[in-house]
């Protein structure tokens, strides 16, 4: 399996991750202005879009793009961090048409604006709802370092090992 296209990408950070732990082979952190080029490179390399997931964090919104491949499966994840004050990411719906609905859904739930989107109207929520239901309260937000990367080794054994579950 060749990942040379990822090595050529312009990005802030590229990490090869343990597929069995994180579910992704590569995690690529890109700047908002690099999203389009990254999506284009993924398309040219034969990838299709799985989904776009947004996470509300202290540092801003983490927009997570998941891509996968038919012939050489292995998830590639792109991550973009945008500030709460200006939650704007360029659309990729002109490259991956399926992103159109995922972007509308993310706009519904978080208010992340995908600039250049052909029709950013509500998808799942009423058109006159007036708020974004998945936003967290500022004191509930976790920091980026704490969760958005799977730690190499969990510091403590997460579960007590005894007996059967109820």
């Amino acid at each position: 399996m060749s990942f040379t296209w990822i090595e050529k990408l312009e990005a802030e950070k590229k990490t090869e991750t343990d597929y069995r732990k994180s579910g992704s082979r590569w995690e690529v952190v890109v700047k908002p202005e690099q999203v389009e080029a990254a999506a284009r490179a993924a398309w040219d390399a034969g990838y299709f879009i799985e989904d776009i997931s947004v996470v509300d964090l202290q540092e801003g919104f983490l927009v997570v793009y998941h891509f996968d491949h038919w012939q050489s499966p292995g998830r590639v994840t792109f991550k973009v961090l945008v500030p709460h004050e200006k939650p704007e990411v360029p659309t990729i719906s002109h490259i991956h048409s399926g992103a159109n609905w995922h972007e509308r859904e993310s706009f519904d739930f978080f208010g992340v604006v995908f600039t250049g989107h052909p029709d950013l109207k509500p998808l799942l929520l009423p058109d006159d709802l007036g708020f974004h239901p998945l936003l967290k309260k500022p004191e509930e937000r976790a920091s980026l370092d704490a969760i958005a990367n799977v730690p190499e080794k969990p510091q403590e054994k997460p579960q007590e090992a005894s007996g059967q579950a109820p």
Partner: protein
Amino acid sequence: MNPEQAFRNLAGDFYTRSLQPGPTENTLILNMGPQHPSTHGVLRIVLELDGEYILRADPVLGYIHRMHEKMGEVKTFAQYLPNMGRVDYLHALAWNWAYVGAVEKLCGVEVSERAEYLRVVTSEMNRISSHFVWWGAYLLDLGAFTPIMYAFDDREWLLDLLQIVTGSRLTYCYFRFGGVSDDVTPEFVEGTLKWCEHMRERLPMYKALVTDNVILRNRCEEIGPIDLDMARRYGATGPVLRGSGVAYDVRRAEPYSVYDRFQFEIPVGTGAGDAMDRYLVRLAEIEQSLNIIEQALKTLPEGPHMHEKAPKRLKAPKGETYFAVEGARGKIGVHLLSDGGKNPYRVKLRAPGFSNLSLFAELVRGVLLADAVSILGSLDMVIPEIDR
């Protein structure tokens, strides 16, 4: 009601108005659904028609939106489990699996071997029952009433069997972190093998009665062809993608659980990727699922149905993971983040029907309204899964 209000209602709601008048004059804006029988649930499609032909289509979602992703953040990991059976009521066990698998991956919980086999057996049975409902309902859309009676007859037996192990008939919540909630009985194993035999006798009848029927063929062949470019652009998965000839199945591509131990084929469409191809792929999948069930039950290992080290009280570490399984409609994905608290920090549910339906608007441009019904049915949507 004052006259002004009446006229505003005539102009339609937000979605009707947002479909701006098109390039041609004398077109008709028609609302199909949300209560249209062929939309199977509450899907609404705003159509712009020129005579019988569709110029533009705009699916309107959200009529059965329940904010499952928010519920994931306010419930504990275990409390959220029953939600999964409600996301897609036809293949509830695949959603069980996607979520349970993601949590197990995040927390490093191991699953007992017997439970892995039981998960495969029940999930494949559930896949068949889902395909039965699709088969019956699709033919109902196309005007054939009898097949749904046959399908539900066979499905009834299947649901009786699943009821023995899971305790429910539709919205299953059978999987647990580290295993399954209950062990199977010898009657279940025996009954399921008998039912598999019965199905192998029934499937040729399905073919002779329905699949070879010339009316069905005329309604499906060369209708709604999806080419590879379109399938990839929209991220189509499942039988919709395989109908176009791509043998992409998560059970093979990213083998999870014990699927790599069984012999089964990935049926693909033969040519155009039309509605008939998608139809044939699903029927062939029923047979392959029967193969898997028989192999799994004949090699079912002894042992506990929960892993000895399964956590009594789940404590998730901080982290992020993604887990995908193959549902009856395609790739089901769960993107799970935890900040170390008792609830998930964020759960993103990837519904296969969502991506599959998103190509509908492009696919039906220029086709007859009656063919759009056939195309819609061939995509096999479950609206609660799409709306979540």
